[in-house]
């Protein structure tokens, strides 16, 4: 309660060992969300294990044409990387539409994925929240929830995941690389975050003690036209009401590659598989886009005060799809 220990391991292995040795420990990288939550009392670590200086701060091209961004690469550096800007522009755009320059200078790739919801009930220790305190209830469901989820929520939790970056990564088929006591494994970013279900206290599929070491952008989406668009309550420095990342390749008027993910709608970046399935092999026309996006959003279950998100997400997706489709297809 009153304070915490601080450890700065020199290697991944030391970090994992320190985690195992200290119940209640948390990994700390940029800290832009964790320190915030510690101050609020939402997080009460016994020990912070500072992984911010581990040698995970490089962006490197792999022989297969993919790009490996280390977990402690700062959001501003990832957004400015010429390879990211040129080949996976949706990622750069998503990063730059999030937070402020000051925060992006500190926030890390790994930390961004692990940031927690900004639901006000989650942040207020005096209010019920199943995510913060399982079984205590959900203050938002009958409360103020204009910013909350319309897809995939549960009776226990209607929170949204706040990241912009993760939405772009999901659409771009990126993978997250995890290091843990049982070795290294990879998960698609699109499957990294969970739906709340019965256990909203668990945001992701990361295992206790595991550490994000990198994010991999695959060669398969390199150079595919992509873009990110976000709607928010003010012109900058605000979380998404809704957002969309789209990667779209059209050949001869036919969609031959597509990845779409929504932000601000769910407990995780929402990969629009129904839309993608409908579009693959279909003509890249406004009508086709409209029908395909509707298929996805038909699954939305808006709450009392957030039905607008469905129309907003639809408009955002159609706008970006039509923009990315070659002019001949949209004419």
């Amino acid at each position, binding site marked *: 309660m009153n*304070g*915490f220990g601080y450890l700065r391991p020199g290697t991944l292995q030391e970090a994992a060992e320190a985690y195992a040795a200290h119940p209640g420990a948390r990994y700390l990288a940029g*800290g832009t969300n964790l320190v*915030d939550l510690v101050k609020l009392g939402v997080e009460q670590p016994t020990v912070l294990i*500072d992984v911010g200086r581990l040698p995970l701060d490089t962006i490197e091209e792999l022989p297969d044409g993919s790009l490996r961004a280390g977990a402690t690469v700062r959001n501003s550096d990832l957004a*400015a990387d010429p390879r990211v800007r040129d080949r996976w522009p949706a990622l750069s755009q998503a990063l730059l539409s999030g937070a402020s320059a*000051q925060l992006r200078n500190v926030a890390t790739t790994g930390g961004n994925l692990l940031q927690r919801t900004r639901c006000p009930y989650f942040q207020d220790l005096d209010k019920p929240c199943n995510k913060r305190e399982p079984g205590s209830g959900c203050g938002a469901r009958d409360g103020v929830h204009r910013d909350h989820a319309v897809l995939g929520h549960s009776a226990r939790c209607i929170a949204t995941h706040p990241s912009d970056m993760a939405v772009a990564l999901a659409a771009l088929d990126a993978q997250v690389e995890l290091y843990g006591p049982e070795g290294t494994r990879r998960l698609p970013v699109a499957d990294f975050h969970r739906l709340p279900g019965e256990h909203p206290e668990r945001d992701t599929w990361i295992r206790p003690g595991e550490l994000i070491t990198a994010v991999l952008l695959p060669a398969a989406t390199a150079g595919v036209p992509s873009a990110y668009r976000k709607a928010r309550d003010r012109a900058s420095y605000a979380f998404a009401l809704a957002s969309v990342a789209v990667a779209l390749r059209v050949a001869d008027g036919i969609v031959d590659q597509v990845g779409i993910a929504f932000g601000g709608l769910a407990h995780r970046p929402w990969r629009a598989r129904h839309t993608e399935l409908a579009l693959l092999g279909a003509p890249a026309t406004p009508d086709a886009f409209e029908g395909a996006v509707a298929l996805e959003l038909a699954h939305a279950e808006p709450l009392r005060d957030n039905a607008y998100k469905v129309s907003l997400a639809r408009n955002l997706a159609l706008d970006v799809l039509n923009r990315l489709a070659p002019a001949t297809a949209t004419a």
Partner: protein
Amino acid sequence: MTSASHHSEVTLRVNGKPHTLRVDNRRVLLDLLREDLDLTGSKKGCDHGQCGACTVLADGRRVNSCLLLAVTLDGSEITTVEGLGGDGEEPHPLQRAFLDRDAFQCGYCTPGQLCSAVGLLAEAAAGHPSHVTDPAAPSGRPVPLDRTEIRERMSGNLCRCGAYPRIVGAIEDVIE
């Protein structure tokens, strides 16, 4: 690795001067500056990275000092508003421009605006794009700063007195 006590020793250079302190691990850079070093120019507006009043430069980059645990900054070089002008009597050109443009009223966000503007100029020169930079603009080259760019890049610094247009004007003055 250091010990798991609740306090740690850190050494920082602040405005060119080295300081070695034993800090509570909970102490953030902002409180270290204000409480331990009596450098109260950096302001606490929200304590949660939501207003920018605490902006300082850490190793040359603008950061929210309220969200950085001091213990993590061992060896860092910090510049606060008190250090912008260097050793001389003359203020930094941005400080002068803020005075000329009346780019503040209550003054509470001002140190953060100034440090943020210094960081902004360096970022644009280094080719960092912003949300409003044309995605087709060439990577790795300095980004020209028009008013739209300045506004977007300064959006992490709130000003409740509404001095925004004048702050943008002051930054433009320095660019010219």
